[in-house]
């Protein structure tokens, strides 16, 4: 089997889920003949037909609300929001209904749906195509938020998300869609949700990140290793609920933590991780918990995007600052 890209891994997982379970239905704008604007649903219409791979009108609230109704009836809808910049209108349905249906009916109805959407900046597109809304989503009770960072994790986590009996928001790092390939056996094996992945081990500092920033963070770790500084690199992967045990254990070992996020600095998942460390990891910390984040501003149009979001250099220099402390 040839190595595949992240978006191909998404496609492979979707195809497998459709093949294995008639209850799986895909919906979204241009998911049919076009195969999705990123080709995540390529070939699925031909293989599974227009009732299972459904082009929708441009109506994000309908798409999300429909998925909730379908899921309540026992289907397993997987919806594609074309870009996460257009997914803010879905927050209402996800928060007020998807995350509540099971609780509201005390288990009578449930909502096994997946909302997939490409996330993050760095592909130089028009406005609204570079959003990092994960912090908002990760604040919604009753909903899981998953954000893979490699082809194999995209495959295994998406299968797990589709199989999960509850709603999952599945964020896909646009910038990584085609950036690199991996061997991903189509074995149908899900990866565990609610669990961090430790991608690299070291002893001097814990680097915590997710989504596309895993790449810059791994690069930073490599550069630092050349200076003799070794790092645990943790891909958080599931942003709600957070697997803080893995992160706390690493920080207990290294004593230092730098969190790397593409979202704006104030608020969001990075804040939650740092807050948790301030509450439960204080005695482990030799240095302040530092965040490398995008600035607290509107994502600029493409020419300044590179000055807005963190790059490897910003990660490296923050780690150096963190190590210099104390």
């Amino acid at each position, binding site marked *: 089997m040839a190595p595949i890209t992240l978006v191909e891994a998404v496609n492979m997982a979707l195809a497998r889920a459709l093949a294995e379970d008639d209850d799986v*239905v895909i919906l979204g704008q241009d998911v049919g003949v076009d195969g999705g604007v990123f080709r995540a649903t390529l070939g699925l219409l031909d293989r599974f037909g227009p*009732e299972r791979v459904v082009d*929708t*009108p441009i*109506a994000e*609230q*309908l798409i*999300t*609300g*429909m*998925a*909730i*109704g*379908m*899921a*309540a*009836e*026992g*289907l397993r*809808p997987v919806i594609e929001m074309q870009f996460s910049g257009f997914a803010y209108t879905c927050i*209402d*349905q996800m928060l*007020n*209904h998807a995350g509540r*249906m*099971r*609780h*509201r*009916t*005390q*288990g*009578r*109805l*449930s909502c096994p749906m997946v909302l997939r959407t490409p996330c993050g900046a760095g592909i130089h597109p028009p406005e609204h195509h570079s959003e990092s809304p994960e912090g908002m989503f990760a604040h919604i*009770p*009753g909903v*899981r938020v998953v954000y893979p960072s490699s082809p194999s994790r995209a495959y295994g986590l998406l299968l797990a998300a589709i199989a999960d*009996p*509850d709603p999952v928001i599945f964020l896909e790092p646009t910038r990584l869609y085609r950036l690199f390939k991996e061997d991903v056996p189509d074995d149908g094996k899900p990866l565990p949700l*609610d669990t961090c992945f430790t991608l690299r081990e070291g002893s001097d500092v814990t680097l915590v990140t997710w989504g596309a920033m895993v790449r810059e963070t791994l690069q930073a770790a490599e550069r630092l290793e050349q200076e003799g500084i070794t790092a645990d690199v943790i891909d958080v992967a599931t942003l709600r*609920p*957070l*697997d*803080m045990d893995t992160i706390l254990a690493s920080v207990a070992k290294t004593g230092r933590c730098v969190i790397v996020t593409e979202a704006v600095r104030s608020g969001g998942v990075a804040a939650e991780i740092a807050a948790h460390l301030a509450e439960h990891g204080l005695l482990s910390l030799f240095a302040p918990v530092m965040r490398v984040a995008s600035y607290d501003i509107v994502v600029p149009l493409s020419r300044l995007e590179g000055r807005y979001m963190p790059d490897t250099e910003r990660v490296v220099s923050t780690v150096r600052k963190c190590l210099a402390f104390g």
Partner: protein
Amino acid sequence: MPVVSRFEIESRQYLDEQGRACGAMPECARDLATLTELYRQMVLARSFDQKMLALQRTGQLGTFASGVGKEAIDVGVVSAMKPEDALLVTYRETTAQLARGVSLLELLIYWGGDERGSNFAVPRGDYPVCITIASHCCHAVGAAYAFKYRKQPRVAVCMLGDGATSKGEFYEAMNGAGIWRLPIVFVVTNNQWAISVPRAAQTAAQTLAQKAIAAGIPGIQVDGNDVVAVRDVALEAMERARSGGGPALIEALSYRLADHTTADDASRYRSADEVVAAWKREPIGRLRNYLLAQGAWSRPEEEALLKSCSEQIQAATQAYLAHPPPQPAQMFDHLHAVLPAAWAWQREEALDGSSHDGSDHTR
């Protein structure tokens, strides 16, 4: 200039304000057994409504939204449904829920502020009360999609208010239902008010039924105080939907005879005269007159019915007041199918917490 499309909105009524037939009656008007059953449902619902208001006033229930005045719409629509269909309601459809088989006790528990009231024993497939206006229109589309996908002859019925027709989701949902020709019937209770905002301030459209035209689906107006007319249009729309003919919109004209909710005082914004006039058109007396005239109902039956209603309601109220209070565990136990490990300590903490019987209701 050429006209490329033409549309008409029709309005249907069979019983006048006195319950006399106005024109040729439809087939369903001859089924007096069913109409009598609908009458019983309406009377039970109205008595229950009064009890709910009384319980709220005495601090034994939370905020409640009275359904008085719209009983004909609720029972007429439900009478056209089959058990396996799905009903999606707002907070004002207690009557419809009763007609579907939700128990008095469950409704009391729900309005008492406890999720267990939405875990209906019957009908298992109906949706819980939807408070966020019009958002459930989209759920109905999904449910109807599932029915069609599985080739089941089932219909989703989505009830909403006149104010709800201003929400984008209502249009998105109608449009989607039209595209996929789904088995779904939208029923708008036009009770002339959305809290303090009158129908005329809600839209410049002459009728709400014509909003269907935007989605390319049939729309029809009906006198919502005339249970015969409601049942007739509902049967028509449901049968078409069930047999693959696609969705429809029904606008049922009625009047909100009560305050918006127990937290509202409608005398602030509408005249007593208007309400008095609306009471003359209310649906229960109208149907009673018709049934009496047809010889299908009698004073003794009326008395027996009222007695039975009050007994049922009394028994349910007692069961409600004796019902064990909700325990903190229920906040956690259906959040997910299995509580994620990360929240386990929170559940424990909540269970240890200081006791609170939750019986106070200030609004």
